[in-house]
């Protein structure tokens, strides 16, 4: 197994985000915060690990912290970086006359002013510009400005994977960090939208981005996002621990780190972890029902585990800028990030496959037969601006086409529909959806793409057993395509079944669907002309294209139900500059259907009748201006 690339990041905060209010001014917050930072540093160094110290705005006014950072840089090889988190402090509030503290939520001029201010102060104190920086989220505007003015910067914490409506709800609808839809492991952000991996050198923002946490790719997607990451205090927050005779035990944390190590198998040997715990989480007054002693023990224990992995030659600790160099030396722009992720907490056999590259982010759920339960069209490069003065003051999430948890997924009650991509099997008036066929899958890498193949499942309809195996192929090409093959493995004894591949989509960033009136549908059928022979290939004939169109109007109408040789059904969604389609060679029929006001979704379908063999289709994503 390859070595785990590890970033440990500590930020000294003189006004830690939670402590000030929680302590109510009863204790000396500054001293306590500094103590916590020193404790974190000590934990790492004792285990032989180096860190990246991200200096906060308030710390730039503390000679003591500047001195400590310089000492630790010299003694332990720690990198001194600059954080755009931890902005709030007396000096910041007086200067900017605001209580806001999230860099991506300011207007553009203020973003530039803050960046210049922070980098200028940093230079004043340290005599050089930082190579690493970060925030919970960094928008493309801020990254581009930073890179232009301070080209030294090569690495940044730029998102917190799947922190959006889930975190908002967990905090009783009060935590406005909407940044769903990004990659879970390091990536090179696009100049247009920092969620999207860069497509090429032209699109390269010049930094390597890392997420704010290494999160559980199943537990975080399914549930509360804030409890399942390589952040010991998050795990305590989720009560994922128990008491034993030797104290508090949390094997889940070690299992989580190990599953990240296991991802090397799917990424040409690359695997990664990061840990970034702000001092507020180690509050001496305790947090999340845990006394300080348990908070501190959990931090120490995880450092010990990373230290153990390092000693065993299974982990390499890196500073953020070292990680950036390493990442660029091991990755090309079109390399995908893959994760076949298993449940390690609840005791189910559930398995997800996550895929991300410059064209899309996608999740397949094998507990639902391989249904697509999350789909983000990176190929559209949606140029969302964030912050005051834009249409997205606080919502930085990259839009989905499918998000099965926010938008119902496989539908279980009597009226409506949920976003999901799957396949239905029809026989003698009965229907089964592969969403209800639980399975698992295998990963295989080919020179031209990545293949995921499910274990076969059996569908029983009107006394007929139909054994089906699904294969998903993510080709290396310049277009956004997922090839889907449904193969019938058993003898149907001459019986004919119909396979219907379907895509039920929406768009948005939350549970609530924006207006769909701008959506336009197109269906294509290529019909054989019997009046013109094909002079070159007489057997093939000449095809005539038949196209139908429809504008979304919430009337439940449908187009494109005729027979053809090659079919395609498309939805063009101007709000997110995306065209999504289901296509099939040798399909019998396709259709596009609008939803109704009570069920604001759209349906694309493509189907084929067969007595055996396979049905090949492809899901396509394109940018639509």
């Amino acid at each position, binding site marked *: 197994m390859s070595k785990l690339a590890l970033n440990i990041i500590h930020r000294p905060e003189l006004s830690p985000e939670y402590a000030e209010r*929680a302590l109510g001014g009863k204790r000396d917050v500054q001293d306590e915060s500094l103590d916590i930072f020193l404790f974190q540093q000590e934990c790492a160094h004792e285990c032989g690990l180096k860190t990246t110290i991200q200096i906060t705005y308030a710390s730039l006014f503390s000679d003591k912290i500047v001195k400590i950072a310089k000492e630790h840089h010299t003694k332990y090889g720690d990198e001194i970086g600059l954080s755009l988190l931890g902005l709030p402090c007396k000096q910041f509030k007086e200067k900017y006359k605001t209580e806001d503290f999230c860099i991506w939520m300011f207007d553009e001029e203020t973003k530039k002013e803050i960046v210049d201010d922070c980098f200028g102060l940093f230079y004043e104190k340290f005599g050089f510009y930082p190579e690493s920086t970060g925030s919970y989220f960094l928008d493309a505007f801020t990254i581009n400005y930073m890179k232009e003015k301070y080209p030294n910067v090569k690495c940044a914490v730029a998102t917190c994977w799947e922190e959006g409506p*889930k975190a908002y*709800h*967990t*905090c*009783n609808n009060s935590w406005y960090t909407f940044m769903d839809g990004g990659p879970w492991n390091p990536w090179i952000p696009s100049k247009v939208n920092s969620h999207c991996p860069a497509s090429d050198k032209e699109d390269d923002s010049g930094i390597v981005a890392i997420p704010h946490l290494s999160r559980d790719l199943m537990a975080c997607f399914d*549930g*509360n996002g*804030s409890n399942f990451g390589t952040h010991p205090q998050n795990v305590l*927050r989720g*009560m*994922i*621990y*128990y008491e*034993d*005779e*030797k*104290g508090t*035990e949390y*094997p*889940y944390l*070690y*299992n989580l780190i*190990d*599953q990240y190590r*296991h991802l090397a198998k799917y990424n040409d040997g690359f695997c990664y972890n990061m840990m970034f715990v702000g001092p507020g989480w180690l509050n001496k*007054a*305790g*947090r*999340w*029902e*845990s*006394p300080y002693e348990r908070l501190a023990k959990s931090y120490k*224990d995880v450092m*010990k*585990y990373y230290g*153990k992995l390092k000693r065993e030659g299974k982990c390499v600790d890196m500073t953020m800028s070292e990680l950036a160099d390493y990442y660029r030396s091991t990755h090309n722009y079109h390399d995908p990030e893959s994760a*076949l992720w*298993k*449940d*390690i*907490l*609840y*005791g*189910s*056999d559930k*398995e997800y496959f996550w895929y991300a590259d410059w064209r899309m982010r996608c999740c397949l759920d094998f507990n639902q037969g391989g249904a697509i339960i999350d789909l983000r069209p990176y190929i559209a490069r949606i140029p969302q601006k964030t912050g005051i003065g834009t249409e997205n003051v606080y919502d930085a999430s990259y839009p989905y086409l499918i998000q099965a948890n926010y938008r119902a997924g496989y539908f279980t009650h009597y009226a409506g529909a949920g976003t999901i991509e799957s396949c239905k099997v029809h026989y003698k008036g009965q229907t089964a959806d592969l969403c209800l066929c639980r*399975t*698992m*899958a*295998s*990963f295989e890498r080919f020179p031209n793409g990545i293949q995921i193949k*499910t*274990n076969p499942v059996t569908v029983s309809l009107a006394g007929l057993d139909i054994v089906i195996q699904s294969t998903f192929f993510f080709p290396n090409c310049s277009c956004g395509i997922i090839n889907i093959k449904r193969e019938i493995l058993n003898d149907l004894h001459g019986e004919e079944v119909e396979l219907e591949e379907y895509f039920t989509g929406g768009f948005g960033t939350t549970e609530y669907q924006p207006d769909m009136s701008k959506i336009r549908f197109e269906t294509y059928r290529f019909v054989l002309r019997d009046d013109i022979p094909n002079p070159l290939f007489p057997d093939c004939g000449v095809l005539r294209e038949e196209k139908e169109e429809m504008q979304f109007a919430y009337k439940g109408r449908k187009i494109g139900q005729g027979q053809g040789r090659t079919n395609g059904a498309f939805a063009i969604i101007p709000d997110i500059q995306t065209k999504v389609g289901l296509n099939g060679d040798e399909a019998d029929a396709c259709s596009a259907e609008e939803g109704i006001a009570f069920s604001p979704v759209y349906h694309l379908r493509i189907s084929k009748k067969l007595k055996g063999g396979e049905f090949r289709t492809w899901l396509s994503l394109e940018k639509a201006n």
Partner: protein
Amino acid sequence: MAQSGKGKLNYRCPRCFMRDIDMDMFFDEEKKEYYCLRCCFRGSEEEVLKLNDQYKEKYGRLKERVVDFGTDNEPPKFIPHRAGEQ
């Protein structure tokens, strides 16, 4: 009657926590009980701890350690976690 305050360990409402809401409770000194502003829960520390233990029941692998992630298309292999080991 004095206003309520936070309890010693900042307990969250166990009922809200079960629906993924972190809702800090307040402590009523007079009645010696915790209560939630978001739902109707009220109870002693003992009741809170009991419900928190119930919450953990959903974590079927809480006390287990993965020893092998297995082949792709099969579940991981677990053993009971040994206290003090990593």
